[in-house]
């Protein structure tokens, strides 16, 4: 399973509002097949809104989002999910009323070829198998994060939207999440990653978009990002 040539995420002139307040202005970005791209910026820069707009959860938008050659337009979030976009929200979005295994089984499989089997999920995350009958929210923060990622991998999503997966987690677990991201990248899956932890972002990403006040102010490949990290962060006020 290698990158599929047409599987490009293209965001073109995207603006977003909350009521009267404009939170994104004319954002252009692109994630190539099998590429890991991060959005870096301080709180309130519009990173989460950008992910939510791509997912179709934030509807007060202008501009266009297309994925794998399809303009998403006004299509609903469930249609986007079925088109292969996997959503890992910043609160992890684990269901308390569903068991760990039910959390995994809930989203429908979107691509049989790419979908992780339950066996593979359990092999990769043994703790989820151990706790499969527990309510989802009885897991630790790190385990919930694993579950949220495993849940979209099981559907065979080809583009993952990860919102701050390292937030509040122990270094060991952050490393483990880094391993998973590299592994799914090898599988040809694209990742759009929102990350405050810049050091972590630099270990997994190919490119970075720097966001400030709802605009993309810089786009850098990982090498030039790493060599000037502190200067860029200062520029963003981080």
């Amino acid at each position, binding site marked *: 399973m290698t990158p599929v040539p047409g599987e490009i995420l293209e965001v073109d002139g995207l603006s977003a509002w909350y009521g009267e307040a404009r939170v994104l202005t004319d954002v252009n970005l692109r994630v190539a097949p099998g590429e890991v791209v991060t959005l870096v910026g301080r709180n309130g820069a519009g990173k989460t809104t950008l992910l939510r707009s791509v997912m179709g959860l934030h509807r007060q938008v202008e501009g266009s989002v297309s994925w794998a050659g399809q303009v998403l337009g006004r299509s609903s*979030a469930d249609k986007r999910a079925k088109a292969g976009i996997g959503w890992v929200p910043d609160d992890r*979005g684990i*269901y308390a*009323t*569903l068991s760990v295994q039910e959390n995994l089984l*809930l*989203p*429908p499989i979107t691509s049989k070829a790419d979908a992780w089997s339950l066996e593979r999920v359990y092999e990769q995350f043994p703790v989820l198998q151990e706790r499969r009958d527990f309510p989802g929210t009885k897991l630790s923060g790190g385990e919930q994060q694993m579950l949220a990622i495993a849940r*979209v991998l099981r*559907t065979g999503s080809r583009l993952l939207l990860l919102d701050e997966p390292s937030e509040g987690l122990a270094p060991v677990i952050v490393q483990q999440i880094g391993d998973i991201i590299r592994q799914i990248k090898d599988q040809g899956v694209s990742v759009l990653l929102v990350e405050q932890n810049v050091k972590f972002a630099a270990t997994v990403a190919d490119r970075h978009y720097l966001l400030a006040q709802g605009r993309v102010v810089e786009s850098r490949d990982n090498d030039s990002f790493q060599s000037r990290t502190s200067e860029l962060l200062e520029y963003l006020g981080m």
Partner: protein
Amino acid sequence: MPPARPERAAYRAGPKLENNRTAPTTGSHMTAFIQYTLQGLALGGFYALAALGLAVIFGVLGVVNFSHGACYMLGAVGAAVLLDATGLGFWWALPLMTIAMFLFGVLMERLLVQWLLRLDPLYNFLLTFGLTLLLVDVVKRKYGVSGLPYPLPAGLDGRITLGAVSLSTYQVFAAVFSISVCLAVWLVLTKTRVGMIVRASTEDAERSRALGINVSRWVTPVFGFGIALAGLAGVLRAPTGSVTADMGSFFIIILFAVVVIGGLGSILGAVVAGFLVGLVEAYGQGYAGRFSQVFIFMLMALVILVRPSGLFGREEAAS
């Protein structure tokens, strides 16, 4: 609510459930206690069934259905009208009215509720409140305010005597039946894929959409199902008292207390709190006469003080 007094009076005069409030003659307090408990379970069954419907509707659609009491009333009135017009009794009314109320719910969602789903939840609250006034007045105009008679079904009109304890057969039936329905619904919700989707969407509909669940597809059947449960509770209640246009008006107030106690949006909470409130009301009626309803709201206040999101509610559900 201006005519609060007559409603309450009608409500209290209504249920034959209070028939059991005879002083314990054999001097056995245990007998009285068992009778009150059964009464409470029967009463709780009505609340649990209806609150279960209210909870899934709120969870999946985000609609607080104020017309739930009116739908409960329609179930009971429908059963009485069915008997009067066609001679079909309780055993027919139970399935027929449940199906009819399901269809009524589907129509209500398709014709009215769906158009307001995208707006502030207050709009659907007002819509269903308005619908309640309309339905109650239509029934009043057509069938009067004095109430329609509904006999106890044949075979369930006797009493079961176990030693010193004498219980109304219908109450035993109502308690067992509603517990069975709650269990059946529980099994469907916990053991099937549809149930899993409904639970997930009840917890967080937006998140379920983002995970590829077409929540909209389940909105209409879930609404119909919730209304059907209210109707079923109404049919079940019909033989225990007079069937009046106002019987839902007080019921909905208790129902909201049930939902607050159980935790808004919690399915398990609705059922547990339903039976809990039924028991509190029955013990209240048995031991403290006219203060019985006070205890329900004292319980509600206590729960809100200790656990603002209800017994089974999560913090998110409260915010």
